[in-house]
């Protein structure tokens, strides 16, 4: 056997210390992300209280004109800003630390951040002025200020620029290390960036050919159906863009934090490549009940969505097995008793374990949404926010929170402030979300619509009241959690610097098998990118051609401001 005796790609410990510049660059991404989460998530509980007729918006009038303005801010700040800034910052980190080398062209990454920040500020102004109360999906012909569309476009463009920076850095590393398998956490981050590049073509076309010219008055109407198709071309892979960095941590870091190793390096890579090829060609599963799209295409996307569920099932095995291995190393025993041997005292671990548990349930409700005609039961009902608060708002967000519990002190050269407070934060998030999300799912099955202040709605039967109350109770518990998180972050940021040995280490898990044993086809971009492109063309091509040929820009929207 000829295996080069190089450093295995995934080894813990030091070996590369981030420069001051790199810390700053990553730090500013996290800073923006956490502020966005802070503001965005504080609005969530207001929404839940409204469900029980406790209307706090009346006291917030100078800042928030309506439930819907709040909901627009909640969706944009949480789902778009918190996630994107965190992910770009975290991927910068995993690229540098995974490869143990500096960015190839740091200026590209600085430029990426700058463009994202400018975009964010541009979008924030109309949002705060109630000029973009169109929710984070901005369905045409709801018309926001042009600055909102241009701003969001710039955020995406900035993320492309940063993605290019990651890619060039990996490329440079490969030149220096011929024949060596790319380190998992770095490779996985770049795969996610590549997927994002393909995925965002949809929204770019939507913005540039329709929404921006329309909001600037260059064209006077839209084709809302085509706009939806463009949007969801990006909208589904968006959720994998959020999720994959959490998977990077679950596969590549959490096992180390738990005291074990990655169970299967090959399968970890395989699932990332599968996400690259099947994340995009599934967008019609958000348009199951749309007019204008033939049923057979919807069916095809439903089946492909089952395909993208498969790598997540693989992830469940690999991650749980890695954790079990860790727990048994720590003396855990029994069929299920080993779970107790995991380091539940470490907030960074606890958050991610709880995130993973709720993700299993989020996966089930997601599979249900995606099941073609089952979508008739739940489409646009409260079930859907019930579902994605388990996925993006917990599996992703709580994992990212867990990552910040070691990464923020690592970058600041401090220690985590308030370990116990952080543990309470983790558990309150978990408990709050369980109550909230369960009630939302039930409401959805009973037919309660989403995106609706149900407290003021005129059609609410008594049957819903118990669930509405539970939504509010969940929201109250989550409010506590959000506040605790912000306190922990602030205190950690301001904590006194400590000597290097006391600063949290970067947890990078070793693989049970030497990564060099991973087959080389799991380390190549070309075949997977070609497969991804082909699948997109096959699954979207004919419908896109049809809808574009058939485009009629005849929908100007109402001639008054509807919010």
């Amino acid at each position: 056997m000829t295996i080069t005796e190089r450093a295995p790609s995934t080894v813990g410990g030091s070996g590369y210390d981030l420069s001051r510049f790199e810390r700053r660059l990553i730090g500013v991404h996290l800073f923006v992300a956490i502020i966005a989460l802070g503001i965005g998530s504080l609005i969530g509980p207001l929404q839940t209280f409204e469900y029980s007729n406790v209307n706090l918006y009346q006291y917030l009038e100078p800042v928030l004109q309506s439930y819907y303005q709040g909901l627009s801010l909640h969706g944009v700040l949480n789902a778009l800003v918190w996630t994107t800034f965190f992910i770009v910052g975290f991927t910068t980190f995993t690229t540098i630390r995974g490869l143990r080398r500096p960015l190839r062209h740091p200026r590209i990454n600085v430029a990426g951040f700058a463009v994202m920040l400018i975009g964010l500020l541009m979008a924030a102004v109309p949002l705060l002025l109630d000029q973009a109360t169109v929710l984070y999906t901005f369905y045409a012909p709801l018309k926001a200020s042009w600055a909102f569309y241009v701003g969001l476009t710039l955020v995406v463009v900035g993320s492309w620029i940063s993605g290019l920076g990651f890619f060039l850095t990996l490329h440079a590393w490969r030149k220096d290390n011929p024949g060596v398998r790319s380190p998992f956490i770095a490779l996985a981050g770049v795969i996610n960036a590549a997927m994002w590049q393909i995925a965002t073509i949809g929204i770019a076309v939507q913005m540039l050919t329709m929404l921006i010219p329309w909001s600037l008055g260059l064209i006077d109407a839209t084709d809302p159906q085509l706009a939806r198709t463009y949007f969801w071309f990006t909208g589904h892979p968006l959720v994998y863009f959020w999720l994959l960095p959490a998977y990077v941590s679950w596969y590549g870091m959490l096992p180390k934090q738990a005291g074990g190793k990655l169970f299967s390096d090959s399968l970890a890579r395989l699932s990332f490549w599968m996400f690259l090829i099947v994340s995009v060609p599934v967008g019609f599963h958000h348009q199951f009940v749309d007019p204008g799209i033939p049923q057979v295409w919807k069916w095809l996307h439903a089946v492909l969505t089952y395909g993208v569920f498969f790598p997540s099932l693989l992830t469940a095995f690999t991650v749980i097995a890695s954790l079990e291995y860790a727990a048994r190393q720590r003396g855990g025993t029994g069929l299920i008793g080993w779970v107790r041997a995991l380091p539940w005292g470490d907030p960074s671990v606890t958050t991610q374990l709880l995130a993973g548990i709720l993700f299993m349930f989020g996966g089930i409700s997601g599979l249900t949404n995606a099941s073609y005609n089952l979508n008739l039961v739940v489409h646009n009902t409260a079930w859907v926010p019930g579902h994605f608060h388990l996925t993006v708002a917990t599996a992703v967000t709580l994992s990212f929170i867990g990552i910040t519990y070691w990464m923020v002190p690592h970058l600041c050269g401090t220690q985590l402030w308030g370990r116990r407070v952080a543990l309470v934060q983790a558990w309150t998030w978990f408990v709050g979300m369980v109550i909230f999300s369960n009630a939302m799912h039930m409401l959805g099955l009973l037919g309660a619509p989403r995106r609706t202040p149900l407290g003021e709605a005129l059609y609410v039967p008594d049957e819903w009241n118990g669930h509405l109350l539970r939504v509010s109770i969940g929201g109250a518990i989550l409010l506590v959690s959000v506040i605790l998180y912000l306190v922990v972050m602030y205190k950690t940021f301001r904590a006194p610097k400590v000597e290097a040995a006391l600063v949290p280490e970067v947890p990078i898990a070793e693989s049970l098998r030497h990564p060099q044993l991973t087959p080389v086809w799991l380390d190549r971009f070309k075949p997977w990118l070609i497969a991804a492109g082909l699948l997109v063309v096959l699954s979207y091509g004919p419908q896109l051609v049809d809808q574009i040929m058939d485009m009629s820009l005849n929908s100007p929207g109402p001639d008054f401001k509807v919010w």
Partner: protein
Amino acid sequence: MSAPDTLEREQEPADEHLTMGIDPWEKNWMLVSIVLLVVFAAAITVAGFAAGFQLPGEESEVDPRTVATEGPWAEPGLRELGEGRYEAYILAQAWSFAPRELVVPIGAEVDIYVTSPDLQHGFKITDTNVNMQIVPGQVSKLSFTFDEIGEFPYICTEYCGSAHAAMFGTVKVVSQADFDAAESGATDTSEATDTSEATAEAQG
């Protein structure tokens, strides 16, 4: 995007192509996963294409600028097509449905056509499988048979501006007798004891 391809083949142990070092239990899990997904796929396919649990599909297009004043949505409401078959044209607009109330006789099979002259809306009839996205320029259609007497709200499930939460209507499913009585404008429905009598009355 071109990709670096610097790895050399001979570094791979021969059998690794096949096994990838996958644990046998993990292999079993992959199998279980695949079987699970295939069974679910079969179940939704059968329900969709054999048992009639259909989604809205490609129907027709309209001009949202004129749809409220010209064509079938200019006079929205229920129309009889033949024995027990009806069609309903419903206009969803900020922030109400026209008509606000749809009275149908029990057992009626109704083709429901909804569109919007302004924004996107939703149309979901509570306790039924009728659930559609309403998009300006497009016609959303589903057919449904109402075979339970009662009131079923249809609710706007898509954000459409400040009074979105007030946007709903009601399907009233009534007995054939009540329906015919209402149709013929009779005020006293208590005498209409059976369907044929009511029908006769209405025709007479």
